């Protein structure tokens, strides 16, 4: 009641309330005066007497006002207004502080949202912490993180003491007829346990059971977009690759794995495939759910022991596995998903935190500087009766406001950054596309901003209070704070610079690698081969070659720098692998003869593939220089026969070596088959050399040749390579930005601190100069103070760098983690900037003329 009435009273305009009160009190006063006049006083006497009796009329109004206002709230509002006025009066300082915080908070929030989506809570799916993935390693072939074969799935299923369910997942790409147009639909073929591994329940219908064959489970997104979320979709049939599939269920809305999958079909693994054994047909993603009570670590250990035991088994398969170093690795689902993104993201987050902390230290320094300028104001307020708490509150409020303003700007930055990130092209970009700023991230950002505000406000506030007590002690303590700032800032900047340097060098090393073919002006695409039009591929190739502006065009599967060649072991006719000889292993590409002219890969011996190398003709192949050198070092490879696909193929030519998978990956020897001779694949790629990007041309030509064929993944060769380098480029660029900013902040901060110290001690300098100190001595003294703290920072930074380097070595390429050059350059950069920052104010100190100095203040 009371509270409500207060509000009602306030709701009437405060101004009117105020006026009424003043009127009322004035009237009262007049009436008292009249009374005195009636009693026989003169008008002036009456006024004086009334004033005496009445007392201070404004204090009466104040007291009355307190009844209907919220004194405490109003005081805070007043403080806020005061703080805002102050902020506006120093736009430069405010701007600097807000920008600093904004950048720190923005970078942090953006990177944390990525971390959240990619690492912490993969794909926003619930309960994935019980899901593990198994990957194959083959030590002998430097293969790690590979998909498994059916035998591996059987092994994982067999470990039922640690897993309650295990599933195999295979990629699926179908041509889907949506409203008369051929669309490429990406999905997965999954064994029936798949959804149980994720403990998911269908949004509609059911998931697969063991006898499902031509059934399909739609993703929630597909159900919404194609069927408008209509429950009657259940039981209907969709056509994938000309085969009918009955819709039996819909996956739940939050089910985002795999990020690009729109439909799931049952995967039935034939007994023969199980019987093929380990290492064959390795294209199953293996997922398993931990049994209740089993920790991830226990399961990892269990799988490791199992692999060791398998290799130790005295059977043909065991010996084979031991020879290749073939085994399984188990890892948590989140790690499996994030793969290569994991360490870079943590690194970026740490870097962003360093920037934020450096920024906070700087703003604290700024406020500290200003606090000495405000000493007078504070003293006056204290002597007028303000309590210490009121002053501290005021100061903290100011810094928190700065923090919040910075935070809001930072969130705007983060929003921008996140929308940029979702468009960056790096491997795993489907994951990044899901990154968004949700309310928790906004809270995190604002919380961070307020914490920063309190952090950098607390130091000056505490300082200020101390100062009012004992000035000299406080000054010493402040110096201690300042030294700490310098140390921390220099250390942070140094660490960031070293890491940035290492990554930039790695990037540079990688960019120097030549892929072995001319990547410029090449456009690439994939298409799905139509079942009912076997001549389509050759018609398309001819049409592309004859299209205007096309220099050369060919078909190839796979396209370089897309999914990697098909790796396989092979045999050499009349040769047994000798002990110590490299493994007979390589990767295959299936191409038409024009491929080499299109990619500008020179032929170094023998002949090219020819139009006559068709399905009916004897099987032939080309090998690259690397394969020739490795397996035929002392003989002419031409005329030899190798078997990799479909029996023995005669080597008819040798090409220059290429890196066609990833630039930094260990390159494998390459075998080129004639595409028409191996018609296994459901899709094929196009490579086309033209003066201008030809994506539209390829699309139009495919459509004109057969309108039911979907064409997809149109990219220039440079884009594909950029994607492989993407993570390195993005990481190096972001870290470079962070590093430069933190160095800049450190410089400004150190400059500010030293300049402040000089200003404070102007008188002392004057006295010393007057007593005969030389300018050089003075200068040395001030530089000494800055450099001592900075030196400590560098030492600490170097230690941190040593520690961190072990951690980032996985992100480096042909650069040692302890790279003397990089460390030297970083050190030089920090020292140069540092010397400038210290030298400038120190020189000013040495130029102070004793006379002005003594008159100072």
């Amino acid at each position: 009641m009371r509270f409500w009435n207060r509000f009602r009273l306030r709701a009437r305009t405060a101004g009117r309330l105020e006026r009424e009160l003043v009127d009322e009190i004035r009237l009262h006063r007049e009436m008292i005066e009249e009374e005195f006049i009636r009693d026989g006083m003169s008008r002036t006497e009456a006024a004086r007497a009334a004033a005496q009796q009445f007392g201070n009329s404004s204090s009466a109004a104040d007291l009355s006002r307190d009844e209907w206002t919220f004194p405490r709230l109003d005081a805070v509002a007043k403080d806020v207004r005061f703080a805002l006025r102050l902020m506006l009066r120093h736009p430069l300082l405010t701007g600097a502080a807000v920008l600093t915080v904004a950048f720190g908070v923005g970078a942090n929030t953006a990177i944390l949202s990525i971390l959240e989506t990619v690492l912490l809570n993969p794909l926003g799916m619930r309960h994935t912490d019980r899901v593990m993935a198994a990957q194959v390693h083959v030590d002998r072939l430097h293969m790690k993180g590979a998909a498994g074969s059916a035998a591996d799935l059987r092994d994982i299923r067999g470990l039922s003491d640690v897993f309650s369910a295990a599933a195999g997942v295979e990629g699926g790409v179908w041509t889907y007829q949506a409203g008369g147009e051929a669309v490429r639909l990406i999905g997965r073929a999954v064994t029936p346990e798949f959804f149980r591994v994720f403990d998911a329940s269908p949004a509609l219908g059911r998931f697969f059971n063991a006898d499902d064959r031509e059934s399909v489970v739609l993703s929630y997104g597909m159900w919404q977009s194609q069927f408008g979320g209509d429950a009657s979709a259940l039981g209907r049939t969709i056509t994938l690759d000309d085969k009918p599939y009955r819709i039996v269920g819909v996956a739940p809305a939050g089910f985002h794995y795999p990020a690009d999958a729109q439909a799931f079909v049952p995967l039935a693994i034939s007994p023969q495939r199980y019987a093929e054994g380990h290492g064959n047909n390795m294209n199953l993603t293996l997922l398993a759910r931990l049994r209740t009570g089993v920790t991830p670590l226990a399961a990892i250990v269990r799988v490791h022991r199992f692999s060791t035991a398998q290799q130790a088994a005295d059977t043909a398969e065991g010996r084979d596995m031991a020879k290749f170093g073939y085994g399984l690795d188990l890892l948590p689902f989140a790690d499996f998903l994030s793969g290569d993104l994991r360490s870079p993201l943590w690194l970026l987050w740490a870097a962003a935190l360093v920037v934020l902390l450096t920024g906070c230290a700087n703003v604290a320094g700024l406020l500290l500087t200003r606090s000495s300028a405000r000493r007078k104001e504070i003293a006056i307020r204290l002597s007028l009766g303000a309590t210490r708490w009121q002053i501290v509150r005021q100061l903290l409020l100011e810094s928190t406001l700065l923090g919040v303003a910075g935070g809001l700007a930072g969130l705007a930055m983060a929003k921008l950054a996140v929308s940029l990130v979702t468009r960056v092209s790096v491997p795993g970009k489907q994951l990044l596309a899901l990154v968004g700023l949700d309310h928790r991230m906004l809270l995190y950002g604002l919380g961070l901003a307020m914490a920063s505000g309190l952090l950098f406000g607390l130091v000056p506030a505490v300082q200020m209070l101390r100062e009012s007590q004992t000035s000299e002690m406080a000054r010493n303590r402040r110096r201690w704070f300042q030294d700490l700032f310098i140390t921390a800032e220099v250390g942070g900047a140094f660490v960031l610079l070293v890491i940035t340097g290492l990554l930039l060098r790695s990037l540079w090393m990688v960019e120097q690698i030549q892929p072995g073919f001319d990547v410029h002006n090449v456009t690439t695409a994939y298409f799905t081969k139509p079942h009912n039009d076997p001549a389509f591929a050759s018609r398309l190739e001819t049409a592309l070659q004859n299209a205007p502006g096309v220099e050369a065009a060919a078909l190839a599967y796979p396209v370089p720098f897309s999914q990697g060649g098909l790796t396989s072991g092979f045999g050499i006719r009349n040769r047994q692998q000798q002990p110590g000889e490299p493994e007979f292993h390589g990767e295959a590409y299936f191409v038409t003869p024009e491929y080499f002219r299109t990619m500008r890969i020179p032929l170094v011996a023998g002949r090219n593939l020819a139009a006559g190398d068709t399905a009916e003709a004897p099987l032939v192949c080309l090998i690259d220089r690397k394969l020739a050198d490795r397996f035929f070092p002392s003989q002419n490879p031409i005329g030899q026969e190798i078997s990799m696909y479909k029996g023995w193929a005669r080597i008819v030519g040798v090409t220059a070596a290429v890196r066609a998978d990833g630039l930094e990956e260990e390159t494998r020897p390459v075998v080129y088959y004639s595409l028409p001779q191996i018609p296994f694949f459901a899709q094929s790629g196009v490579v086309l050399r033209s003066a201008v990007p030809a994506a539209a041309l390829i699309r139009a030509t495919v459509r004109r040749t057969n309108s039911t064929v979907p064409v997809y993944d149109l990219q220039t060769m440079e884009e594909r390579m950029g994607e492989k380098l993407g993570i390195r480029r993005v990481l190096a660029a972001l870290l470079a930005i962070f590093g430069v900013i933190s160095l800049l902040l450190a410089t400004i901060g150190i400059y500010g601190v030293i300049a402040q110290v000089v200003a404070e001690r102007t008188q002392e300098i004057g006295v010393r100069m007057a007593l005969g100190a030389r300018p050089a001595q003075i200068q040395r003294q001030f530089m000494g103070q800055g450099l001592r703290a900075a030196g400590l920072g560098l030492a600490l930074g170097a230690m941190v760098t040593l520690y961190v380097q072990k951690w980032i070595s996985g992100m480096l390429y042909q650069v040692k983690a302890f790279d003397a050059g990089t460390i030297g350059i970083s050190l030089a950069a920090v020292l140069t900037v540092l010397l400038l920052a210290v030298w400038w104010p120190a020189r000013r100190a040495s130029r102070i003329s004793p006379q002005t100095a003594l008159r100072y203040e």
Partner: protein
Amino acid sequence: MGMANPEFLKGTLDMLILRTLSRGPNHGYRIALHIRRLSLDAFRVGEGSLYPALQRLLINGWVQAEWALTDTNRKARVYRITPTGRRQLAEEVREFDFILAAIARVMEGA
């Protein structure tokens, strides 16, 4: 201003004002005058206490205020007691009587 104990006065002043207003609507000056006269100058209610008290009563909904012309033809803010104000007055009078009686008993018994 008569009473020595401001806390005691604070509660009592509200009661005195309500009691004054229960005889009819009045403006601030006349309320103060009335209290002073009836208390034989014992309570000289200062403006520093009167107006805060009136605001308090307004907030509690025990009085209402409106601008009206006084008998000397001036615009003044006239306060009027509300029904809840009357109930509050009765309550306070009862409490006051109780306290007064208690004090009296203590004083007599000493």
